[in-house]
């Protein structure tokens, strides 16, 4: 079966620090990503700031043109941005951001904002009011709230508005970029449940980008862990959290503070995530890795199958060869 969405060797680079004389630096924010998202599945993208996860999300939607590689939608290349074919496709794929207040227009009522995509994509224009009511009901907003303005709603309700608006064009695919990070714990659970309903009831396919590993573990079927623009481990959600194999994933999973556990037994990584502009040689993680050997500084590990998962680590490959 063709995956709904697929990326092949996706690379994005930005040019920074351009000065009159010196060489301009190029930063490879995303550095060769092959992923596929099956219909109806939620794929989690996990990583620290600067790992390239948001850039990847934007390229999946065609909001950014990749420097190299391609994004395939149902096996066919994505049309170039701002063309008619791209606009048509964009109705089927939507983006949900972290900060709902920034994503909403403060001077428009909630109802008008949810109706806006219907106008843009020319869908159901005759029944717009009914459709807005239906969408609001689906995300758990009261009908009378259609006349409210964003500042009159709470953070959780605003995020529901953003989700309702994203659903207006009947998309098949959503990219959720840190959708619950700005919300309080009790509200976070409400929104996570809503997204789960959308997957279960309507078969929506999602890419869920987050640094909150507990939420990712709960909602995602499959998870890809990114480090400095590359995927270092990819596996089913249950497997990757119960038995992480890449040393970076292991440190990430162990860093989650668990209720009633204290600070013992955690892997504390030394140093900071490196600057993408000066990527370490070989395996980019080796300067912080507790399992690193000499070869790690020289050889770039490939993403390979290991025991029911994909992982990019020389030590894993060697252990299996031995």
């Amino acid at each position, binding site marked *: 079966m063709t995956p709904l969405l697929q990326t092949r060797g996706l690379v994005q680079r930005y040019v920074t620090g351009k000065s009159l004389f010196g060489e301009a630096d190029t930063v490879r924010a995303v550095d060769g990503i092959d992923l596929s998202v099956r219909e109806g599945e939620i794929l989690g993208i996990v990583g620290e700031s600067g790992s390239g996860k948001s850039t990847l999300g934007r390229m999946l939607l065609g909001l950014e043109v990749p420097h190299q590689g391609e994004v395939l939608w149902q096996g066919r290349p994505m049309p170039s941005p701002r063309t008619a074919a791209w606009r048509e496709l964009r109705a089927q794929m939507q983006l949900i951001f972290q900060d709902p207040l920034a994503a909403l227009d403060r001077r428009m009522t909630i109802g008008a904002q949810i109706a806006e995509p219907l106008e843009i994509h020319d869908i159901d224009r005759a029944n717009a009011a009914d459709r807005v009511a239906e969408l609001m009901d689906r995300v758990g907003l009261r009908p009378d709230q259609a006349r409210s303005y964003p500042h009159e709603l709470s953070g959780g309700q605003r995020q529901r508005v953003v989700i309702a608006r994203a659903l207006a064009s009947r998309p098949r695919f959503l990219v959720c970029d840190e959708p619950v990070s700005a919300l309080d714990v*009790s*509200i976070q659970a409400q929104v996570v449940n809503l997204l789960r309903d959308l997957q279960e009831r309507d078969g929506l396919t999602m890419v869920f980008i987050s640094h909150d590993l507990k939420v990712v573990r709960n909602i995602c079927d499959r998870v890809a862990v990114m480090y400095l623009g590359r995927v270092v481990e990819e596996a089913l959600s249950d497997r990757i959290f119960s038995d992480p194999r890449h040393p970076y994933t292991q440190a990430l999973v162990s860093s989650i503070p*668990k*209720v009633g556990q204290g600070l013992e037994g955690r892997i504390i990584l030394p140093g900071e*995530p490196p600057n993408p502009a000066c990527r370490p040689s070989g395996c980019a993680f080796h300067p912080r890795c507790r399992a690193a050997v000499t070869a790690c500084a020289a050889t770039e590990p490939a993403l390979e199958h290991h025991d029911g998962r994909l992982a990019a680590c020389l030590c894993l490959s060697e252990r299996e060869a031995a």
Partner: protein
Amino acid sequence: MAFVSIRDLRVAFSGVPVLHGIDLDIARGEAVGLVGESGCGKSVTWLAALGLLPGKARVTGSVTLDGEELIGASRRAVEKVRGARIAMIFQDPSSSLNPVHRIGRQIGESLALHRGLRGAAARAEAIRLLDMVGIPSAAKRIDLYPHEFSGGQCQRIMIAMALAGQPDLLIADEPTTALDATIQAQILDLLARLRHETGMAMVFISHDLGAVSSICDRATVMYAGRIVERAEIGALFRAPMHPYTRGLFDAIPDLDAERARLAPIEGTVPDPKALPAGCAFSPRCVRANGFCRMEEPDLKPQPNGGEVACFYPIPAPQREEAFA
């Protein structure tokens, strides 16, 4: 006698009460967690205690430090305490540092103000502090600007500045919230180590129950400007008694359990301008009845040594069952 003692602390912004009488004691050297959602008053409590709220805030009640009253004290008296005896660090380190001054100068300012150190002595002490909070090659990097450090390192620099006055109490307001997971782990570790080394007390304000449980001795849970429950960490996390505390625990996805639907607390935090009658949590509470919507529960001592403000706290047998 407690080192810091807060009694009936109330705060109102433009006539709207947001803090409804907080009682809190901090002993020397202990670490207390302050837990709750945005707007519950956990930060306001300490901003009020240290006189850091804007002029439109009306603060009443009492905050004493070793018996010395801070509320209504002269500006000079409060400034002697702030930074020197009680220091505070915030969520977003990059907005707390001055971008146009070198970090050494910013730490030096604290050292001059609180300890009278200047020149070479101040510089040596600043390097020692940076070293202590884990900034590599501190002697070289002391002359860099904040933007030359990462977010995690800026938080370390903030902690170094807070330590400059050798405080007896450090208020850490969501110190790890803006940081990445692996850096969060480093900072929690650092705070625990510093507390151990310096013997200072710590108030750890956070909405992250896991982080609170890993470094605090006891915790206080706040909702809508009131304390609803407090207990030793172990007791609180094994068997929360207030339905709100229990709801907070249930809302967090469990790493080891089935990937099931989460159990959110329905509804939202009330608007301080329109607080519900009776218990402020009653509209969202599954255990509430008509009485809860009329009367306000007081914080009452419990057999487990903690205190709970609830007419119908979750009884022990049910709690054991839930945790079995």
